[in-house]
């Protein structure tokens, strides 16, 4: 059994002295684990960094075996993001969410394409945080926990949606939320197609998708939201504090 495809490296854990167990994501195979021979060695560690895009070849005697990977680097996203703490935090968070949220060997082509575009556009800076929130909403939708931002279930209005119910994931207007408004999650306007957002909206967006990822995806497996994802939220929350101080 073997396949050859472009893949995003999501996670690499040392195995033995020079090898690694890697989790990658491809368009046709979804999240896939395998043994990366020499993946933790000096010569190949540069390729096996989370976030990198590589041309990957997987070989296994049987389809259900762990198998082994060999990789040729296509785009060194990790090396390009290392100098910028926000880019690095975004890259780590996206890889950690994909690695933890997606079931193994189940194709999610939309999620793969979204992650590919997100990684390619990381150098665009903080503006890509809106893209990251949209991608996380896409992960939720692909896993069957999509947000419904089409209309307020209370008033039926399709305009003026400003909240999301933390229970149902449906958008609400201020009137629809009524006295429950303080318990609702803020809905950032960029998720409805209005602009690219600002630090407050990015923070709210990360809080929104983080809530549902934690409850519906990671929580169901008794896992916490990945540390990298929590660290990204903390970083963006600090951005809003810096902005309000200024």
């Amino acid at each position, binding site marked *: 059994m073997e396949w050859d495809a472009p893949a995003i490296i999501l996670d690499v854990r040392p195995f033995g002295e020079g090898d690694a167990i890697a989790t990658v994501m491809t368009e046709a195979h979804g999240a896939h684990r395998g043994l990366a021979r020499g993946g933790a060695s000096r010569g190949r560690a540069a390729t096996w*960094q989370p976030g990198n895009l590589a041309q990957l070849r997987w070989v296994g005697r049987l389809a259900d075996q762990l198998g082994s990977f060999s990789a040729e680097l296509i785009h060194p996203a990790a*090396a390009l993001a*290392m100098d910028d703490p926000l880019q690095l935090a975004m890259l780590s968070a996206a890889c950690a969410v994909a690695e933890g949220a997606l079931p193994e060997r189940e194709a999610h082509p939309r999620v793969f394409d979204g992650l590919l575009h997100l990684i390619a556009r990381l150098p665009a800076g903080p503006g890509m945080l809106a893209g990251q929130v949209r991608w996380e909403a896409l992960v939720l939708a692909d896993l069957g926990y999509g947000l419904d931002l089409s209309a307020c279930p209370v008033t039926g209005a399709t305009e003026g949606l400003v909240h999301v119910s933390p229970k149902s994931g449906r958008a609400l207007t201020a009137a629809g939320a009524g006295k429950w408004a303080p318990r609702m999650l803020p809905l950032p306007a960029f998720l409805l197609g209005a602009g690219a957002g600002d630090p407050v909206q990015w923070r709210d967006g990360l809080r929104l998708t983080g809530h549902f990822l934690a409850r519906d995806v990671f929580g169901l497996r008794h896992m916490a939201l990945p540390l990298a994802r929590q660290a990204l939220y903390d970083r963006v929350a600090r951005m809003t504090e810096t902005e309000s101080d200024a």
Partner: protein
Amino acid sequence: MGGPEVERLIGLLAKLPGLGPRSARRAALRLLQHPEARMLPLAAALAEAARAVRPCGHCGNLDSRDPCSICADGQRDRSVVCVVEGVGDLWALERAHVHRGLYHVLGGTLSALAGTRPEDLNLAPLLARVGAGGVAEVILALGATVDGATTAHWLTERIKPFGVVVSRVAQGMPIGGALDVLDDGTLAAALRARRPF
């Protein structure tokens, strides 16, 4: 094969880095063939090292003295602290005789994917050292990996408020290296880190 003692010796040797079961058998055989000349001195040295060597309370280096011989050396520049991931990195810099300041060994790097948090590393003593004053520069000599870079950013954000210069070891062309054999990431880092010549 040679009794449980020999099997246990081979099993323990095989756990050492660089040795697998086959090479552990060869090493055990060599030791057993010359017990007076090799095995007993080695056993004594191992026992002595296990008894005497401890992590330095200041920097985390392994030494039989606390503070270690580097921290206790009055000739060293105490205003410059080089931060490394492990004792192996410290030894590498000492072998090269390129750093005459002090060190701080973190004992690893922050890793969101592996779940290594700041409290799992020797980070708080470093911040305390910097906060106590007398340190003018902190050199971050951490690996050029996602985890190394994450740790470097974490430290930079916490050290800079003390008014201390934070620098990082360069990334790029190795001495004797050729451009065409470098990976894309190293090439990109090398070009970004170019300087007037």
